[in-house]
């Protein structure tokens, strides 16, 4: 038990302070959303419940990614391979941590009218499933399992009871945990890396690595990585350069939209957009922060006052990357809509792609300043503002036509985003290179 407690402390990083901060953030976030999103007097209780479930799912995904990161670091130890007790300890600690965060959300869910079984168990299960995005060692675990909660919740459209859905969720979670626990071969490759495992291994599962390497060869054929000041090569993995992340987000969107019935609308779209922004861009920023230390041997070349040129170059290449990804995402969706008639709503996806791009660009410099490896107050605050803006903006876009982008509220919103961009650029300018290069802690 003592061992599990100390492993838990490592998972929760800032120990129990993060749970407190997270609790406050959960309550605050739900309060804001209830105040602005749903009119309790007019909306049906079912809609209200559904709303809270989507929000809890989003928060649990956020936590799951963090716990997955902590788990992955501890999984690197050779003890994982040779000591069954260590493996059991890690797995139990992960489950405990997920359900501690789940318990924090219990009040909010119970208040929203859910029964105690789902309030108690669903957030923990969703957290464990989203952690698979980081710790999963194959495509099934890495991409399909994290998406299952959302797919399962859409089964209510087919009049399937929530208790049955919860049961399915528990079964899927147990399967994921079982697959994690029986994973003994993947870690062999960790041992061959440098002290803490190499960067690629920190970022991707083994089969994703081989894709990345194939993309790297292709990239080399198209564009030799020569040329002064091309820092982007050091900061973005070749696979993502080719839009792999956009493609995966696009698939996630399509799967999700398939399960949305044609009448449901604004709420789901708002939540989708926020989730896509959260998961898609957050993964990108974590990757970027991990890769940043690759620039160490050349950082001094841009080392004038406060490394201004260095930071400017980094910002420019990430700006370009986000814009290209957004464009690829839109093209991908439009192509699918042309090929499969009536499968997706192309105009809606176009508007969402646009929103994702401009909100992403507005927040991007601020995101570069954050420590993505510990849950901390600054990170939660920025994520909340980011999510709230995405939620509101995408909801607004859903309800209005493209021409309405020229209306006064839209222009005011875009001006607001420009202001956010200016403030966040200022923060990035002030950010020290030391903080940027720091991976953990």
């Amino acid at each position, binding site marked *: 038990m003592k061992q599990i407690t100390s492993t838990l402390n490592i998972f929760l990083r800032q120990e129990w302070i993060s749970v407190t901060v997270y609790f406050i953030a959960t309550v605050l976030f739900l309060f804001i959303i209830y105040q602005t999103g749903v009119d309790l007097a007019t909306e049906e209780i079912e809609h209200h419940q559904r709303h809270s479930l989507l929000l809890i799912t989003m928060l649990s995904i956020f936590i799951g990614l963090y716990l997955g990161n902590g788990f992955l670091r501890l999984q690197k130890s050779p003890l994982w391979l040779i000591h069954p007790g260590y493996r059991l300890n890690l797995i139990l600690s992960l489950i405990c941590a997920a359900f501690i965060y789940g318990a924090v959300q219990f009040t909010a869910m119970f208040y929203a009218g859910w029964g105690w079984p789902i309030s108690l168990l669903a957030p923990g299960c969703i957290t464990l499933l989203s952690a698979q995005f980081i710790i999963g060692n194959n495509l099934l675990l890495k991409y399909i399992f994290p998406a299952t909660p959302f797919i399962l919740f859409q089964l209510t459209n087919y009049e399937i009871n929530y208790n049955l859905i919860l049961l399915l969720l528990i079964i899927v979670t147990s399967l994921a945990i079982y697959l994690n626990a029986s994973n003994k071969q993947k870690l062999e490759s960790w041992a061959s890396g440098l002290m803490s495992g190499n960067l690629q291994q920190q970022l991707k599962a083994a089969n994703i690595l081989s894709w990345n*390497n194939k993309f790297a060869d292709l990239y080399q054929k198209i564009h030799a*990585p*020569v040329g002064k*000041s091309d820092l982007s090569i050091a900061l973005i*993995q070749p696979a993502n350069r080719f839009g792999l992340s956009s493609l995966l987000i696009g698939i996630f969107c399509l799967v999700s939209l398939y399960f949305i019935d044609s009448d449901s609308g604004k709420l789901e779209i708002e939540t989708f957009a926020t989730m896509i922004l959260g998961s898609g861009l957050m993964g990108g920023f974590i990757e970027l922060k991990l890769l940043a230390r690759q620039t160490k*041997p050349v950082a*001094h*070349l841009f080392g004038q006052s406060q490394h201004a040129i260095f930071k400017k170059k980094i910002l420019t290449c990430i700006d370009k990357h986000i814009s290209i990804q957004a464009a690829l995402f839109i093209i991908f969706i439009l192509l699918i809509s042309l090929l499969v008639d009536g499968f997706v709503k192309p105009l809606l996806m176009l508007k969402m792609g646009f929103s994702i791009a401009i909100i992403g660009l507005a927040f991007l410099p601020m995101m570069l300043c954050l420590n993505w490896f510990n849950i901390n107050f600054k990170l939660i605050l920025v994520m909340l503002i980011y999510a709230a803006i995405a939620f509101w903006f995408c909801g607004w876009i859903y309800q209005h036509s493209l021409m309405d982008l020229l209306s006064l509220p839209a222009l005011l919103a875009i001006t607001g985003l420009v202001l956010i961009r200016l403030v966040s650029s200022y923060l990035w300018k002030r950010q020290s*290179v*030391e903080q940027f290069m720091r991976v953990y802690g």
Partner: protein
Amino acid sequence: MNKSVIEINKVNKRYKNKSVLADLTINIEAGQIIGLVGRNGAGKTTLIESIMGLKEIESGEIYLWQQKLGDLPQKQKELIGFVPQDGIGFEWMRVNQYLEYFGGFFHHWDKNYSDDLIKRWKIDKKSRIADLSGGQQQILQVIQALSIKPQLLILDEPVAHLDPNMRRQFLSELVGLTCELGTTVLFSTHIISDLERIASHIALLNNGKIEHFYELEDLKAHAASLLFEGEVAERQQFNNLINWQSINQGSKAILADPNGPSLEAIKQQLNMTIQSQPLSLEDWYLEVTNEANN
């Protein structure tokens, strides 16, 4: 007198409440090869990364070639080769791509020299970096730093993963380069024998300061374990003698600082027989670090 290449004045750096560099001052002149030693966590990497501008110092000044770190012209910056401690990265790249990529950042990049080193150190150009061993990855970083033909080379534990053969080759390459170009080298290491082989000076970092900074030959000539035939009462007057011990009808001490009174002067002052035994560099290091932590 040689021109100063690195000048550090009263630099301070803290991590939260822990002071890592405390009023650290050192002056490194052109052509010197400085071996930076110190216990784990002494602040070697912090010092090196501060010189590279990767760590923000709280106070003090760092000058490279008599110019403030931030004001260094681009051409000068490109004459600095740096090997950081924390691994190579770029696992997806192949060896030749990696070198080509870094070559693009430096005007003085010598492709022939890098090809030559790759061949001599038997690294397959077509290999992916992820498939190289830890030692080969470290060698590749060193090749990248050497191929700049640097005027200043800063290496953070460059030989930690290398086998003795590779270490020998690397060290002789380093000596060749310094002779050819007059390169100034600052490297941190825990392998004292390597330092003994190539360094012109040794700098020992302890308690946030460079506590000992000597010409290596000078230190090797003077560092000794001394056996006094009688008890020495006023030990504190010999500030270059450390780790005093009373033994059977006598005393024992270590002569750690070649800049203090010489052995002859001590003999004359105490008017007693002193047996002297030369101290290896490793023993000297152990004695001074033990003394500093007692």
